[in-house]
């Protein structure tokens, strides 16, 4: 089975986020008042072969912990969905 994986990496609370802070400060000048809590992270997408969704999730989370994120400063959310052509049904 093939699964599409979406990894959303965000800086942990308290870690400097210059891009998010700069965007948030710019918003009032553009007329967007009342927008707070802007954070800028990154998205990593890939397709993974796995027996089932549990295995796909587990392997993706391992990959996140060992490589895609630095747990000292970042958190990740992993979303796994069956790829369009990933099923043999």
């Amino acid at each position, binding site marked *: 089975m093939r699964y599409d994986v979406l990894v959303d990496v965000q800086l942990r609370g308290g*870690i*400097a986020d*210059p891009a998010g*802070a*700069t965007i948030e400060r710019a918003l009032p000048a553009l007329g967007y008042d009342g927008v707070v809590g802007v954070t800028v992270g990154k998205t990593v997408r890939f397709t993974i072969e796995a027996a089932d969704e549990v295995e796909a999730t587990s392997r993706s989370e391992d990959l996140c912990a060992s490589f*895609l994120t630095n747990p*000292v400063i970042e958190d990740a959310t992993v979303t796994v969905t069956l790829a369009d052509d990933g099923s043999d049904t």
Partner: protein
Amino acid sequence: MSTTVGVVVFPGTNCEMDAVTAVERLGGEGRLLWHADDDVAGVDAVIVPGGFAHGDYLRPGAIARFSPMMGAIARFAADGGPVVGICNGFQVLTEAGLLPGALQKNSGLKFLCQPTVLRVDSIDSVLTRRAVFGAELSVPINHFEGNYTCDVETLARLRDDDRIVLRYVDNPNGSVDDIAGVCNEERNVVGLMPHPERACDELLGSIDGEVLISSLLGSSPVVAA
């Protein structure tokens, strides 16, 4: 016999010749080590220099830690070999788990390229053993992600074990506890954001980096028990 210092070159490293030049001015021999090789070729000490290893893609140091040379450096360090990571090299050593913590973006949101004054807060490390405790050294910085951070337990341990070897006198980047450089428990691996190799020639405005580089040259490997 002069001390041979291996200077690691990743794709994107750009301070390797600064390091080699500083080492050779101080009587050592510099030898470039290619990141894809998997042994340190018998050198006496290793510098992981500054630059943008593997383009800094994903995060500074994130991909570099998988280069075969990093495995060789981990073994060299485990045997007591002196290893110093400068700037991007410090980021690489934290990503590789040879030093604790991480380097986040500067708190002032700017890339910083300027002289800084460092205070020597421990002389018990391979980079500071010839320095004077409390001495203030003028050494330049050149980074965007030099804001040292770690969890509170790690910070307490670094303080208790006297492993914060260099602090900024006037913190330029928001680093926790003004940290400019730290060492590992065995004190043979040191990482720092400032560039001592760029403060070894009067023409560059300071020779205060000499005492740090010469400390490294004088640090013979500790024989593992």
